[in-house]
């Protein structure tokens, strides 16, 4: 199954990190990506630019409503994602737990819908 691991972290805290720590964090991310890619489990992923440069778009009554900022103001922001291939939820959870930001942020694990199977609960 394919799972999208949404990485939420505090942009404020990330901004406060000293360069050496940031470098360590990126190195750790890089190693995990390489390891997963080597096993064919990493399908894609990227860090995102901060929410200060986010734009939100809605179409209402045929009209575009474009606003500055993220969809929701929250304490932690969506900062990146991994798209992974895992046998089951347990494996996806095990990968999510190894994402460095899991230690101070939050990883949301979402299976990808296949063939329009996603109905509203």
């Amino acid at each position, binding site marked *: 199954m394919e799972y999208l691991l949404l990485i939420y972290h505090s942009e404020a805290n990330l901004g406060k990190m000293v360069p050496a720590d940031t470098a360590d964090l990126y190195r750790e991310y890089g190693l995990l990506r390489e390891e997963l890619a080597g096993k064919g489990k990493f399908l894609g992923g990227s860090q995102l630019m901060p929410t200060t440069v986010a734009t939100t778009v809605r179409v209402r009554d045929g009209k575009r409503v474009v606003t500055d900022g993220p969809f929701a103001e929250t304490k932690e922001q969506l900062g990146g994602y991994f798209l992974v291939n895992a046998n*089951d*939820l*347990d494996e996806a959870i095990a990968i999510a737990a190894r994402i460095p930001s899991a230690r101070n942020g939050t990883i949301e694990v979402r*299976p990808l819908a296949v063939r329009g199977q996603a109905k509203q*609960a």
Partner: protein
Amino acid sequence: MDFEKLHREESGRILATLIGLLGDFDLAEEMLQEAYAVAVQKWPSDGTPANPRAWLISTARHKAIDRLRRDQRFERKSEEIAKTAEIAAQPEGDREEEMFADDRLRLIFTCCHPALPLEARVALTLRTVCGITTEEISRAFLVPLATMAQRLVRAKGKIREAGIPYRVPLPEELRERLDGVLLVVYLIFNEGYLASSGDALIRRELCAEAIRLGRVLCGLLQKQAEAQALLGLMLLQDSRRDARVSAQGELVLLEEQDRGLWHGEQIQEGTELVKSALRRGAAGAYALQASIAALHANAKTAKDTDWPQIAALYDALLRMRTSPVIEVNRAVAVAMARSMEEGLALLDELERREELKEFHLLPAARADLLRRLGRKGEAADAYRQALSLATNDIERRFLRRRLADLEKLSDPRS
């Protein structure tokens, strides 16, 4: 053939095997129902098969293959064809007892997966592992039937769609996941043991099911001391079931219970389990609570209770996690072990805490200590305060009785 009994006793195990074979909760349940329907029709005339369980599994399995084949005629889903091939390739006939046990264990871990909401884990375990009907579960938990049904549908949907696996966790995950399973078993037991209202029969059944699950876990995971401690705890608590409530349905306090009604064999088994768990290094909340229960259960009379040790165990429990119930129980143990005044001082301290303002056991415990000290007026006030907070009918009746006794004693006319 008693179909009712067969259904009750075997459904959980058969369902576990079928879910394993079919990889689908709903399909397994539906096919099992169909297999039962065939059995009800055929067995009375053809005779009951030598192994009813194997017969039901095999029949349900064939029904599932037919069903999947029929569906394919309309929608040739490659995935389902693969599934049919897989099921068709499974060995026919009897499977060994231990295979059933493995199926059950896998099913327990799936139903208790932390990715499911806690209340759904409890409901799903009762429904699929224990074979209790949705209606009975809804009655036991005082939840409308439609709500309970929806809860189960959602949980099964998540298992399927989020890819929650049907297997025993890997050794490195087992410890953590087992804690989650034990919690579900403990909640099922407590619902039966402490529930304030609802059907008494179903509640007793919940306790029995929780104990049965505890036995399955201990049998299959022999090195897990915490599972042993939990089973011991449940057996010890449950051993008092006939003494806790009087013939009139009134609550009887531990101190006043007829100890002759306690189930001695269960106490012995529970005590042995606790000892063994402690030897294996169990030091968690279940082990501590079970040790307390063992001390109560093995006291010949209320006076023989080893209160100093119980107070020390509550201390240890409190260091592990704070809970108003534990705090109140500890204060009572201190009162019994050392002096009423010391226990009362601890309760007074708790009363000053904002978060315990609504907690009825606190004034109830104070009332009891004050009564023992002969401070009747204050005791009556505390009973009234407890009454204003308690919601459970049995407890309210008990508090009212105690209050009436006090008023009788202090009324000069009587």
